[in-house]
C-alpha cells in the first residue's frame, strides 16, 4: 500500500516538473509565416497563460491588444503564435522587443507558391480549448522545411538542472545514511 502511494506521489511530481519544463523551455518550429496581426484579448480563466509583463504599461487592465503571428507547418497544419513581452517576469526570457519581432515576422511573410521557411523559437503551448498560444521569441530565415534546429539552450538548461539535482541528491543520501538512518534504527 505504502509502496503504491510513494510511487504515485513521485510520478505525479515528475509529471508536474516535466509539464512545467515543457511549457517553459524554448523550442523551435520551422514554419511559413502567412500573416501577422493584432487582436484584442480579454483575459479570463486562461490569464495565467498570457504574459503580464509590466514593461512600462499598465497591468491594471483586463484586456489589451496582443500581436499574433499566423503560420503553417510544412505538413500544412496551421499554428498561431502570440508575440508578447515577457519583461522582467516569468518565464525569464527578458523579451522586450515585441514590436521589433513583429516587424521581422511581417517581413518574412510568404505565400504557398513561393515559401520562405522560418525557424520560430517559442515557448508555451497551442491549446484551442483554452485559447492559448505559444509565445514567439525570435524568427530566423532557414534553408528549407526540413531544416533541423538543435535546441542547444534547452539541452544546456536540462544538463545544468540535472547536475544540480544530482549534487543535492547525492549529498542528501549521504546525510540520510549518516544522520537519520542511525536514529531510526535505534528505535
Amino acid at each position: 500500500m505504502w509502496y503504491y502511494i510513494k510511487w504515485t506521489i513521485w510520478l505525479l511530481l515528475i509529471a508536474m516538473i516535466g509539464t512545467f519544463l515543457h511549457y517553459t523551455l524554448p523550442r523551435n518550429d520551422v514554419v511559413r509565416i502567412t500573416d501577422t496581426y493584432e487582436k484584442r484579448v480579454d483575459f479570463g480563466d486562461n490569464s495565467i497563460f498570457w504574459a503580464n509583463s509590466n514593461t512600462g504599461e499598465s497591468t491594471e487592465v483586463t484586456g489589451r491588444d496582443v500581436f499574433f503571428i499566423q503560420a503553417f507547418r510544412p505538413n500544412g497544419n496551421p499554428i498561431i503564435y502570440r508575440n508578447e513581452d515577457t519583461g522582467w517576469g516569468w518565464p525569464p526570457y527578458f523579451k522586450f522587443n515585441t514590436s521589433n519581432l513583429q516587424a521581422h515576422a511581417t517581413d518574412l511573410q510568404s505565400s504557398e507558391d513561393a515559401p520562405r521557411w522560418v525557424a520560430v523559437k517559442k515557448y508555451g503551448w497551442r491549446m484551442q480549448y483554452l485559447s492559448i498560444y505559444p509565445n514567439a521569441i525570435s524568427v530566423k530565415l532557414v534553408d528549407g522545411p526540413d531544416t533541423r534546429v538543435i535546441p542547444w539552450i534547452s539541452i544546456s538548461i536540462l544538463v545544468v538542472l540535472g547536475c544540480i539535482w544530482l549534487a543535492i541528491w547525492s549529498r542528501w543520501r549521504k546525510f540520510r545514511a549518516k544522520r537519520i538512518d542511525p536514529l531510526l534504527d535505534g528505535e
Partner: protein
Amino acid sequence: MFALARLVLILFVVLTIVYVSLSLYSRAVRRDKLEAEWDEEGQSGDREAFVRDGLEDYDQSLRRKLILGVYVVPILLIGTIIYFTNYN
C-alpha cells in the same frame, strides 16, 4: 519599474538563501576535512586549535570568496539573455 524591483527582490532573497546554505555547507565540509586530517596524522596537542586555525585560513581563502559567484553568475546570465533575446 515595479516589475524590475520585484525581480531584484526575489533574486536577492533566493540567492541569499543559496549563499548562506552554501557557505555553511562549505565550512562544514572544510571542518570535517581538517578533523580527518588531524586524526589521520595522529598529531599531538590541541585538536580544537588546529581545526580553528584551519578554518581561519579558510575564511580568508579564495575558495570562500568564490561562493560570491552565487550572486555574480545569475546577474551575468540575465545580462547575456537580455542581449541575445533583444539585440541579436
